[in-house]
């Protein structure tokens, strides 16, 4: 046991040393260009994958993706810490100094547990549930059980879009649980048969198709699915944007064009977002 442990440590150290020196010799000849992107954690996994494909086509480029939230993307783009920012919404009125380039679309859907007999909710019912006027599933055609309302944390684009669509302010919402990222919401709803939440359609549809016990409710009669966001019929959708502080040039321009081209459509669909190029 002890010898195994010592051997492992030796191997680890050897691997680290080897890992260091091998790639170095390849790169001495080429000069490396770096592209730094920061911002929304929803967009980050997608852009990281696009970045990897971009790197394979342009071997002297490094695309570094960092998360931190849409607001961070805005701040870092303005201060120059990032070459390009990522945000999961459109630019706001006080962000006219920035330029945005949409690379994909996403929607926001209400989700409930699969065992919940309720199959749809009207706009007013959703508003009443979230403001605490309706507190039992019984009142909307479900079981006699208290509703567990799940809301997103302040500052997140998903929350802002949700509030905007239902014309609410955050103080009016009376949640029982507040979550951070999409998966936390999905896990909360799948673990609690009486919970209700709203998440990105991409994430929701993926999980529902992979046997996680949640279901997506239609909004205003339109089913919540990636295809309905694609044909623009779904009422609550949002753009996923790359932003810059000035007209992009050089490698940034090439990257943005690449991200908006059909060459990455399969990557976008793999993340269950809607591509915009066709």
């Amino acid at each position: 046991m002890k010898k195994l442990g010592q051997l492992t440590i030796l191997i680890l150290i050897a691997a680290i040393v080897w890992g260091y020196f091998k790639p170095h010799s390849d790169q001495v000849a080429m000069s490396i260009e770096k592209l730094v992107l920061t911002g929304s954690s929803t967009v980050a996994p997608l852009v990281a994958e696009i970045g990897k494909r971009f790197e394979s086509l342009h071997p002297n480029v490094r695309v570094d993706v960092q998360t931190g939230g849409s607001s961070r993307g805005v701040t870092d783009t303005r201060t120059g810490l990032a070459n390009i920012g990522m945000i999961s919404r459109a630019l706001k009125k006080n962000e006219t100094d920035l330029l945005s380039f949409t690379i994909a679309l996403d929607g926001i859907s209400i989700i409930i547990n699969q065992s919940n007999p309720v199959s749809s909710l009207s706009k007013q019912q959703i508003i009443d549930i979230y403001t605490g006027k309706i507190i039992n599933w019984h009142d909307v055609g479900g079981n006699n059980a208290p509703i567990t309302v799940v809301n997103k944390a302040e500052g997140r684009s998903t929350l802002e879009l949700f509030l905007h669509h239902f014309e609410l302010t955050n103080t009016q919402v009376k949640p029982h649980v507040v979550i951070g990222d999409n998966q936390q919401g999905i896990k909360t709803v799948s673990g609690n048969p009486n919970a209700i939440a709203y998440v990105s359609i991409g994430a929701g549809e993926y999980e529902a198709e992979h046997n996680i016990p949640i279901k997506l409710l239609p909004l205003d009669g339109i089913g919540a699915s990636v295809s309905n966001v694609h044909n623009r019929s779904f009422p609550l959708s949002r753009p996923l944007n790359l932003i810059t502080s000035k007209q992009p040039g050089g490698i940034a321009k090439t990257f943005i064009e690449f991200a908006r081209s059909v060459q990455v459509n399969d990557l976008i669909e793999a993340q269950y977002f809607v591509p915009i190029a066709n």
Partner: protein
Amino acid sequence: MSAAVILLILIFLLNESLSIFQHVSVSRFINDASWHPQQGLYNITPMLSATILSTVGALILATPLGIASALFSYFYAPKFLATWYRRLIELLAGIPSVVYGLWGLTTLAPLIAQLHPPGVSLLTAILILSLMVLPTVALTVEAAIAAVPASYLQGAMALGLSRWTSIKCIILPAAHSGITSGILLATGRAIGETMAVLMVAGNVVQHPHSLFDSVRTLTANIALEMAYAMGDHRAALFVSGLVLMIMVLLLVFMAAFFKRKPAYV
């Protein structure tokens, strides 16, 4: 050097927080209607009570369990079992907080939800925190007990004292300095725990009226909102960071006040 680091951190926190104090007075952090920074409301007291309650709860659970654990592996267990038990505890000291949080969210919370919704609550946070802090207490207490000179135990046995009595009256007091530092470390860890609590406490900003209410600790709040906060909101979060530091400061000075010199000289 560590004092230098602390000073640096303090200065940094103060600097970031000051901007908000220019137009929001300190009392508003206590008296505002609620915590809704986007609408200019900055009451942090519900989160303060959440942090305090969850830490105290976790300590109440973890301290006796941790000490009992250490006693078990050092005195009560047969040699073979003791080694494996100790290995288990060490293994658990190394499990990342995200894993505990994940387990809490996917297994513990649904269980508690069946007892009383919503499942993610103060109770869940306390349970997960005590799990996380237990190895810290157990390991440091065991190190402290191991450091008590063998002559003490031999002396007790020579005097005819029973195992429990010699533990209670001689070993534990002799090791109390190490035990206290173990508890202090555990408290520090519990106050500062961010990720796991974020996943299991529910994160609703409210004073808990029961163990089953969802709460948000100061740390979870910073983690949840920092990335998305700008301007005043961001400064308000730094203020809560300052509050955390002050809490720890107070705790530390209190503990120092009660700590006596080592029992042996």
